[in-house]
């Protein structure tokens, strides 16, 4: 079995450039996508207006909108929508910080050192294919049901993409870049800090974007199981009381935040590594 190939394949950041650079891609399909969304909402409205599906299972878009407003103002299960959202975001960013602090050095170790690769490869390869919910119960047994266990699980889900994209970025550093620094007298550490790390940043940011996606879905799932606040918890509670409008409202908010996080990540890429598009 060759671990090396498997490790790189799923998360290897092939495309670093933002889509904006490719003519006709985003612009060409946007109107079609908008029409699709409009059709789905229209079908949804019709289905609920004509009672095709019981409102208990599928409330109309208007009712869902009202539910969003209602949760935002009056709250649901002891917290407002803002509080639920804040609780979720806090977890995701705490986990992101933890996995960046651990993941980037780990990725550098895999990418630059035989020993580092030997030690870390099996761990990452073990972790990567595991669904986080599979180890959530174990983590709860180990460190309890509080914030720490949720943040740990989310971090574990975020770590592999960050580690692997860092390692891939390290390997993509052009040999001439490294040789140039060495011919100007750079030490090994200087080569790592001033050449290899900056070369890897576009790849690391792509990995971070993937990690945010993985982390966000893990977060919601983790909150479904064990939390007293958060968007996942809100949905789970609403489902228990069959408050379908809040369930759907929660789903829409989750999707919207995921979308915003993605946009934020892409903006960060453009701000931090404007040169990546010019390589």
């Amino acid at each position, binding site marked *: 079995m060759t671990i090396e190939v498997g490790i790189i394949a799923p998360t290897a950041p092939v495309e670093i450039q933002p889509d904006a650079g490719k003519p006709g891609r985003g612009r060409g399909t946007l109107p079609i996508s908008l029409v699709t969304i409009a059709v789905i909402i229209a079908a949804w409205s019709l289905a609920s207006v004509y009672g095709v599906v019981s409102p208990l299972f599928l409330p109309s878009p208007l009712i869902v909108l009202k539910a969003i407003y209602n949760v935002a103002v009056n709250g649901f299960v002891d917290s407002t929508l803002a509080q639920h959202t804040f609780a979720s975001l806090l977890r995701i960013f705490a986990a992101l910080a933890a996995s960046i602090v651990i993941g980037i050095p780990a990725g550098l170790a895999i990418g630059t050192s035989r020993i580092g690769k030997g030690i870390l490869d099996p761990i990452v390869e073990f972790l990567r294919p595991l669904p986080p919910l599979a180890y959530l119960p174990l983590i709860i047994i180990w460190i309890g049901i509080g914030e720490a266990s949720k943040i740990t699980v989310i971090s574990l889900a975020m770590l592999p993409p960050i580690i692997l994209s860092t390692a891939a970025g390290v390997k993509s550093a052009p040999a001439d870049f490294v040789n*140039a620094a060495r011919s100007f*007298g750079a030490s090994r550490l200087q080569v790592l800090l001033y050449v290899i790390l900056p070369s890897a940043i576009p790849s690391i940011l792509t990995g971070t974007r993937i990690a945010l996606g993985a982390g966000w879905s893990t977060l919601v799932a983790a909150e479904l199981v064990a939390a007293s606040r958060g968007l996942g918890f809100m949905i789970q509670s609403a489902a228990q009381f069959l408050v379908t409008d809040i369930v759907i409202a929660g789903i829409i908010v989750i999707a919207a935040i995921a979308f915003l996080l993605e946009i934020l990540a892409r903006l960060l890429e453009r701000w931090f590594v404007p*040169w990546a598009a010019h390589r």
Partner: protein
Amino acid sequence: MSVLSLQSVSLAFPVDRDISQTRLVLDGITLHLASDEFIAVIGRSGSGKTSLLNLAAGFLKPTSGRVSVDGVDIAGPGADRAVVFQDDALYPWLNARDNVAFPLKLRGIAKGERRLRADDLLAKVGLDNAGAKNIWELSGGMRQRVGIARALASDPRFLLLDEPLGALDALTRARLQQFLLKVWSDSKTGALLITHSIEEAMLLATRVVVLAPNPGRIVADIPASFGRQLLSGKSLQEIKDSPEYRRLHDGLTGLIHADAQEDAA
């Protein structure tokens, strides 16, 4: 004065990752570059020019023989032998000035001082106002000048240049040849220039070395004075029209051509 020496150097690469089988790429290379010389190495593609430069830079270790500076074997790349690359190898995350200042940063020189010296070097290569520019905003010729300024910033005893002008259009190339000549004569560093162009080699170098392939070996090492004539103000046309220029040009063309025929036979 310093001397960079390759003594009876040979270099073999493994064939297809099979360590037991090797292919000889350079054989019995002996070459001494003094710090007031400008050596141009010409030879056909695959004759081992880049390999020769990589040995001198310390990026590659010779299979046998010695590479030394002033009699001391080199341990690897070092700031005394700065390299200018064919594809500039400028760091796109740094602007032009910070690229030039990079070797100074490596030596722990303070930021203000770095900036002053980088701007000085940029002015020297005719890019006074380009310091804040991003690398991708520069033309190919400007990039190579930044690359040369960056190499000079490391205050080397030898400049190693691997076809730095190879990717440029003819006009820019001719301009940068003059520029390179001036930089070399001002900076008192030894220069080792790899090039495909016989004309470029003749106009710049104090010695033209011809490398024949399979395995790469030196078949000619000829002194030339056209660069000095250019520096002393003689016109390019006058030099190119001179009988000695034509004679050397024909001779070098014949040498490179001869081994092409030998290859075909």
